[in-house]
């Protein structure tokens, strides 16, 4: 700063620093208190929950009105969301992997391979990013319920082990999410592939590798950090989606976790806040796990 000898700080600097930390502290509290409140509420016995100071840990009988400690809401949330969680996993893993893989292949074909008209095709991909969800809701329902007879096609497959009749809706949702995810994945991968040295690809061509071999042995291994970025992004996107699920699955055994979360803990006798909080945190947990698993590669990918 201004002419202060090394090691010392002027009073003005000190004030600035104090202000900085104060602001940081306030912001941290601002962002963390809702989560902390949810967590504390979720471990409160619903029968003793008053809602007076939901951010306090349940400490009855030590503190009157703070509720009694109970893990029962988490147990009930798990029981209530179990089938939704399973359906969401069945949905999110293939949807994420397919959109990532297809996006990567498309980006490779549009970047490192030379052919006529690729700019036009790429423009179509980019346009795909900007199609609003609302505009496709009705066509989507029509498509999966009236145009493509997936429901009847699925019937023979339903007898296979681990496959159920209602799974056809999840397949429809997987295809929809994959299709919707491919453009943004292509964009992300293309930015990455444009930075790959052209001479390296040419060296591989001279070494006798075909277009597909170059992808498999050179480009794909060098895409790992970008796959982490895409996987985290797509996983979060698909896991948290409610709109497409409501449109395509509508209701029934194939409901995903976001759909089940809407109704849990709500009844005519009132809202069961501890159960709702536990369910919300439970439903958010997988996205956190994915972040932890791919976090270091993600950082590599976004800073590359």
């Amino acid at each position: 700063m201004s002419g202060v000898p090394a090691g010392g700080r002027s009073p003005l600097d000190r004030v600035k620093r104090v202000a900085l930390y104060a602001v940081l502290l306030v912001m941290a509290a601002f962002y963390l208190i809702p989560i902390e409140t949810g967590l504390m509420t979720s471990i409160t016995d619903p029968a003793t929950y008053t809602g007076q100071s939901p951010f306090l840990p349940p400490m009855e009988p030590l503190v009157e009105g703070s509720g009694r400690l109970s893990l029962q809401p988490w147990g009930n949330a798990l029981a209530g969301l179990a089938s939704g969680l399973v359906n969401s996993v069945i949905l999110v893993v293939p949807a994420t992997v397919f959109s990532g893989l297809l996006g990567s292949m498309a980006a490779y074909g549009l970047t490192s391979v030379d052919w006529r008209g690729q700019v036009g095709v790429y423009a179509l991909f980019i346009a795909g990013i900007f199609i609003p969800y609302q505009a496709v809701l009705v066509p989507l329902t029509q498509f999966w319920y009236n145009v493509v007879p997936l429901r009847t096609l699925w019937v023979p497959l339903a007898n296979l082990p681990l496959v159920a009749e209602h799974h056809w809706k999840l397949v429809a949702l997987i295809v929809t999410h994959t299709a919707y995810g491919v453009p943004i994945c292509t964009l992300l991968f293309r930015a990455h592939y444009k930075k790959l040295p052209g001479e390296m690809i040419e060296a591989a061509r001279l070494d006798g590798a075909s277009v597909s071999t170059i992808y498999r042995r050179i480009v794909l291994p060098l895409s790992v950090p970008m796959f982490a970025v895409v996987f985290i992004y797509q996983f979060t996107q698909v896991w948290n989606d409610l709109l497409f699920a409501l449109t395509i699955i509508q209701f029934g055994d194939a409901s995903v976790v976001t759909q089940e979360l809407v109704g849990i803990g709500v009844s005519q006798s009132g809202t069961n806040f501890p159960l709702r909080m536990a369910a919300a945190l439970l439903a958010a947990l997988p996205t956190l796990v994915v972040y932890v698993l791919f976090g270091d590669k993600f950082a590599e990918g976004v800073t590359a």
Partner: protein
Amino acid sequence: MAQLTLEEVTKVFNAGDSEEIVAVDGVDMEIEDGEFLVLVGPSGCGKSTTLRMIAGLETVTSGEIRLGSRRINDTPPADRNIAMVFQSYALYPHMTVRGNMRFGLEESTDMADDAIEATVEETATMMGIEDLLDRKPSELSGGQQQRVALGRAIVRDPEAFLMDEPLSNLDAKLRATMRTELQRLQNELGVTTVYVTHDQTEAMTMGDRIAVLNGGVLQQVGTPLECYHTPNNRFVAGFIGEPSMNFFDVTRDDDTLEGDAFAYPLSAETRPAVGDATTLTLGVRPEDIELAADDGPDTAHSFDCVVDVVEPVGESNNVYLRFAGAAEDSNPFIVRISGTRNVAVGDRVTATIPPASVHLFGPDGRALKNRSLDDVDGVSP
């Protein structure tokens, strides 16, 4: 191993809006089996494009490229059996040195795994990189990466090597070492090699023959000394040689060449070569000009000059001179003298341009007369 032939090879790039850029214009070249040909020229002269067409990385607009008796214009790069070394080395960063060297053999041959392994080990030992086989390229120095890039090309035992400025990312000392080593390797392997460079030291020292390109047009193909002593035209004369040949624009007045600040008598032997051209360029190499003190020889070929700049290089001094009567802002010419001779800025000296060492170029740049080689020993040993 095979002979490589380029016949009327032309490359036209479309720069959009029906604008066309001719990068390579009708290049004819024959590279003998086992020959080391250096393709040299200034940046943008089309030398890299020519190399990339031979590699198959660029299409050929017209003309024909043959490897042996096989026309390879439309052969994909993978099937040409050609290996290329890139300026950036282009190593595969996620593979070890072993993986890099194996890749070409795995993709282009159906050799058994242990045969590939043995070939890789053998080549690595020859290149002195056997200790680096399990390292990744990022763990290697620039010189080591360069060796791996060479090894990766050699291990494939191709019919031809193409090298695109492979030494230009190395420091000067290493570059000199690698220059010698590359020559030795090429000699041992006897593989037809096309080597692209803009560095004329590399061109002069490495090639069996050099091909000089300018503006996409082949200017001359010949041994380094042919290009040096008997250039086809003014461009080759100026491009080959460091420092460059001195050029003076002159007009012919009967048997005298009139320059801005000097007049040079035209000898009887030279007159027929000049014909009836009147605007000429006189060229003379810096080392051919003789320098003497102010009271030096007083012949028709001697001129009084003033020293403008002295550049000591060590073994020689590059002395920039101006004719005594020339304007202050006229371009000086360069004389190369022994590094032990002492010349100071501002000295008045006498420069003698021997008639035997004079080159004359016509108005179109074509060489009308090159220096006589009577006074040069051992051009053809």
